[in-house]
């Protein structure tokens, strides 16, 4: 009998410890990733209640949100950040959790580290006190962001209660045009389905466009599922997944790897798999995409003008007006040519080696515009090391970009990397919310790393297809 369950439901069923009379599932969690921002209060809950970490070997900690990327000498200049670092060091030591700290080469953004270390594998349930945990769905896992109370629950029991979501298959077929990247695909999907469209759903990204993507591109797509309201997004495991995992530090080896790979591939949604909803897009409709507003759905193709208020339904006008006013942009104006002040290449969306290679390829032989401050923040120490082996840092530095240490940096500006005042930032990150990049009135334009690089060099939003 063929299994008509989609991957999500196969993995869910595998991890269901019990179902409560109210329909909630107590779900076993295969991998718990923690970081310094959302864990201290959780450890405090354990201490208050005299509890231990139930499966310390299934818990991995790193530091990313608050770490400075210029100088990492301890104690940090920011005493609050220093206090948080001390807290995670103490908590991990006391509760027996492995911590990849700044002295450990494996340190980096939690959603870069998990895949890089082979911790993230198909068929797992993965949680982290961070909404971009959806990144790990790229491997065909159920990966969701959780709050701090949930972090305490998972630390103490390796389980949590969840309602089973519906599953929407988001199909994109076809070859992406030159200059169109994974980032553009997910920005396009969010533009079409909205920031709330995915609430109550897990997104299965399927179709030939995703089949052709590398694992790093798939991570970029799944990373921003949450920006579309879907707590979890995933891509079915295939040979690309298997090859990425072969030889990773935490991957199985030898005959065990073969058994694992067979299981991973068996989880993929089959041809008869059932979905609660299906939407279909064409890769050929996607162009380099740029956000112009204060939600990730407020975006346009770079050749397109901003929407006109008259074309928008009455209920959305208030939001659009608020966004235009905050961004100091006009309805119907082109996005191309919008002047920028800062360029940021980094974040759990786009800070992996393939992102840096592409940005360096574009930056090579050019120089950042005189009025632009441009920084490159690798996603992990290992990404940074690899980039330096390839000489990418020299390309960036010669082009006028600052080359930094690994961390979350200006994606959410919990460290010293912040916008100032009304600065406009071309950013490869994931959120253009008001104040997101550290200045309450700072402005963010989300785009691919390639487009950020082109904008940094020209000094304004530039169509990468016209950049030479």
């Amino acid at each position: 009998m063929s299994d008509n369950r989609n991957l999500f439901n196969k993995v869910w069923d595998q991890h269901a410890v019990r179902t409560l009379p109210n329909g909630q599932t107590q779900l076993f969690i295969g991998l718990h990733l923690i970081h310094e921002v959302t864990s201290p209060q959780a450890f405090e809950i354990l201490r208050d209640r005299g509890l231990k970490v139930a499966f310390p070997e299934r818990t991995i900690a790193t530091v990313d949100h608050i770490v400075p990327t210029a100088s990492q000498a301890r104690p940090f200049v920011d005493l609050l950040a220093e206090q948080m670092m001390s807290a995670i060091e103490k908590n991990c030591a006391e509760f027996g959790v492995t911590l990849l700290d700044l002295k450990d080469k494996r340190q980096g953004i939690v959603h870069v580290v998990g895949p890089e270390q082979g911790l993230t594998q198909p068929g797992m349930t993965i949680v982290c006190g961070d909404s971009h945990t959806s990144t790990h769905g790229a491997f065909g896992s159920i990966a969701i962001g959780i709050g701090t109370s949930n972090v305490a629950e998972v630390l103490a029991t390796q389980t949590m209660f969840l309602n089973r979501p519906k599953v929407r298959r988001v199909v994109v077929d076809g070859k992406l045009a030159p200059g169109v990247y994974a980032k553009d695909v997910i920005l396009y999907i969010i533009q079409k389905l909205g920031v709330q469209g995915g609430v109550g759903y897990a997104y299965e990204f399927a179709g030939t466009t995703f089949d052709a993507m590398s694992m790093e591109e798939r991570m970029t797509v799944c990373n921003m599922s949450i920006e579309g309201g879907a707590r979890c997004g995933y891509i079915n495991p295939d040979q690309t997944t298997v090859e990425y995992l072969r030889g990773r530090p935490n991957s199985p080896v030898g005959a065990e790897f073969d058994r694992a790979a067979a299981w991973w591939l068996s989880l993929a949604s089959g041809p008869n798999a059932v979905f609660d909803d299906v939407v279909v897009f064409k890769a050929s409709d996607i162009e380099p995409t740029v956000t112009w507003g204060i939600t990730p759905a407020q975006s346009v193709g770079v050749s397109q003008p901003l929407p006109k208020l008259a074309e928008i339904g009455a209920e959305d006008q208030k939001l659009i007006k608020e966004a235009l006013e905050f961004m100091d942009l006009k309805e119907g104006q082109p996005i191309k040519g919008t002047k920028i002040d800062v360029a940021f290449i980094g974040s759990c969306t786009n800070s992996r080696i393939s992102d840096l290679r592409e940005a360096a390829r574009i930056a090579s032989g050019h120089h950042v515009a005189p009025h632009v401050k441009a920084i490159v923040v690798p996603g992990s120490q290992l990404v940074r090391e690899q980039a330096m082996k390839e000489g990418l840092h020299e390309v960036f530095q010669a082009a006028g970009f600052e080359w930094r240490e690994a961390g979350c940096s200006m994606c959410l500006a919990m460290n010293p990397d912040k916008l100032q005042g009304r600065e406009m930032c071309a950013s490869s990150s994931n959120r253009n919310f008001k104040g997101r990049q550290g200045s309450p009135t700072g402005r963010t334009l989300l785009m691919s790393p390639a487009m950020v690089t082109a904008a940094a060099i020209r000094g304004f939003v530039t169509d990468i297809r016209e950049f030479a």
Partner: protein
Amino acid sequence: MAIKEIKQITGTALPLLLDDIDTDRIIPARFLRCVTFDGLGEHAFEDDRKQDPNHPFDQVRFRAASILIAGRNFGCGSSREHAPQSLMRWGIQAIVAESFAEIFFGNCGSLGIPAVVASRTDLERLAQAVDQNPVLQVTLNLETQKITAGELVIPVTMPNSAREALITGQWDYLGRLLSAADDIRAHAAKVPYLTGWK
């Protein structure tokens, strides 16, 4: 752990009928540089408040409010529990909105904050009533799933699992999870990647 049954919240209300309010706006990231949730209350919506002198959170007439009236997709974005923590510490005990982002909704449940949904039309009527009379007593009854405000009675909804947990005082999820400790160990022994895929 003994925990409070939450069946009804009564108090004045605060209208903030905006859409797609993200958790960065509720509590800007710089205030996440902390190891306890203490002191987050005063920073709720801090940057929005600084930019809007008429922000409802700064209006004296709404200062004592315990029920927040919000729009569509409230609490989207970051998973930070600091967001509902800051609202709770501000004095908010319940939220009624057109819809909620999922992680935020779950975080409210963990803190015993009822997060209920009402239609836009009803929310606008409620917001108007409160705007006209800020001392109006508003009652959210989770058992009847109704909000009553003077003459106004509006239906609200909340998923049963979360609603029942509040009503029966079983929203200490950690305690309930721990009660299955043996089942958890037994389950772990069947998970393929914990047993060498044999």
